[in-house]
């Protein structure tokens, strides 16, 4: 393989990885935006999303087969189910804590994370569960680089979801309300916006995006397990911070940057793939030191 081939291959790998990171980071950043909570359970919603996707696919693959039709339907149903789970978690665990000190709600989020992980652990006994997706091995050759249809479809679905979210948030009245709630809740109420409803919808959308990523990842990598959300939760948090926490385009950008960084970083001479987490977290530290507001984040300043 030539250097060009390596670069091409890693661009594809980076896009795939970055899509997962970006989808999960979006929920992280949106939820932080509306209630200033680092939702440490968010990675676990990705995991639950993977399992729900697996269950749906197992149930319907007799009819649809394990191809993209089946995976797309599984993803869609998983998004609905986990989206609702996210809303329930917000109402039951976080909502009563909104006026409590910040640390309390953070600890609540850790507890929710443990509950989700251990529930799935006890059901699955910690086993990897094979995801019944069956894609075939089609693809296109670009020089010596082989790009599978799977990779293209996966990146396409992720892009579709992200563009859809961006249009919703920037063009619709409800999307505007969502941004407004992140800025000034009292003013939103005075404008007739049901703030607690907007918070619920934010959890619905954020959790659904994590579920989409979980199902896609399960299908792409071939298995799901109870601990799969832990590392991606940390990575998504990193991506959100790199992009500027609270910023939706920032989460997308941060996710992609992280994906590319890990894909290309592991190609450096003498550095194997076991180093990829080091790259991500080193960048997190650098961003926190040199640009704590992130690439697209804004500092909090009030004009009198």
């Amino acid at each position, binding site marked *: 393989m030539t250097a060009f081939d390596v670069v091409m291959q890693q661009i594809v790998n980076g896009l795939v990885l970055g899509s997962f990171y970006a989808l999960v980071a979006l929920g992280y950043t949106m939820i932080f935006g509306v209630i200033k909570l680092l939702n440490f359970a968010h990675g676990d919603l990705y995991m639950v999303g993977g399992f729900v996707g697996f269950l749906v696919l197992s149930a319907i693959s007799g009819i649809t087969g394990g191809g993209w039709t089946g995976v797309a339907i599984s993803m869609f149903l998983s998004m609905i189910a986990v989206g609702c789970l996210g809303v329930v978690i917000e109402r039951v665990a976080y909502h009563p804590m909104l006026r409590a000190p910040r640390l309390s709600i953070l600890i609540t989020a850790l507890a929710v994370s443990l509950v989700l992980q251990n529930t799935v652990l006890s059901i699955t006994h910690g086993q990897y569960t094979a995801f019944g997706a069956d894609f075939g091995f089609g693809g296109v050759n670009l020089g010596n680089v082989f790009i599978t249809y799977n990779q293209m479809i996966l990146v396409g679905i992720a892009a579709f979801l992200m563009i859809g979210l961006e249009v919703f948030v920037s063009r619709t009245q409800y999307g*505007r309300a969502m941004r407004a709630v992140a*800025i*000034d809740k009292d003013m*939103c*109420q*005075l*404008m*007739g916006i*049901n703030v607690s409803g907007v918070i619920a919808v934010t959890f619905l959308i954020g959790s659904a995006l994590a579920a989409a990523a979980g199902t896609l990842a399960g299908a792409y990598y071939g298995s799901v397990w109870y601990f799969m959300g832990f590392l991606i939760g940390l990575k998504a948090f990193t991506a959100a911070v790199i992009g500027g926490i609270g910023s939706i385009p920032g989460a997308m950008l941060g996710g992609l940057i992280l994906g590319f960084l890990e894909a290309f970083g592991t190609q450096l001479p003498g550095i194997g793939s076991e180093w990829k987490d080091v790259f991500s977290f080193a960048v997190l530290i650098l961003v926190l030191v040199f640009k704590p507001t992130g690439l697209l984040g804004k500092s909090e300043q009030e004009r*009198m």
Partner: protein
Amino acid sequence: MSTSGNAVLKLKGIEAGYGRIQALMGIDLEVHEGQIVTLLGANGAGKSTTLKTISGLVRARAGSVEFMGEDITGKNAHQIARSGLVHVPEGRHILRGLSVKENLELGAFTVSDAKLRQTRMQEVFDLFPILGKRQHQDGSLLSGGEQQMLAMGRALMHGPKLLLLDEPSMGLAPKLVLETMRIVKRLNEAGTTILLVEQNARLALRLAHYGYVLESGAIRMKDEAARLQADKSIVQAYLGE
């Protein structure tokens, strides 16, 4: 008690506070249709708390608030806003990061008819041409006076039946203060009922039909604005001028 119209807003024995601090000690107040009523008093007298209790941001501990004949005590702020009672809070609260136009759009959040929103936005731009020119800028980057226009324009987008204005002239240059008051008068002449909290008591009394003087969370005085204005002792004792 007063010259014109039915009571749009009626407060009876309103008590409210924050934590262990009682800020309002039983407020009775009425605003009649078509009026400008002003609420005067020193800093900390409870003016802003009164407005917040009316609009639902602060819960009343006792007493009742009646708006257009309906008891709205204890309702959520967003429900109260939906019924046409629009509160423009102190400090303007322009949504940072959203454009002037988006700020205005959100003012009409409860208006589902896109055409009506469009018409209202045009009216706001006619009233405040500068907002039309700056519609794509970040609202929080406007000057103080422009932000005040945006805050009022945003309230008008809602189509208010009653407008609560909290210190609209705060922090503005003298020329802009007069401009702001002219706009308040114009809105009132166009039919909007207004409850105005204002630190500039003389100016407020010139504009208003009726006035209340608040001291330590209780109404100390109420009368026709012209009479309050004429009484030098009142102006000196309660308004610090």
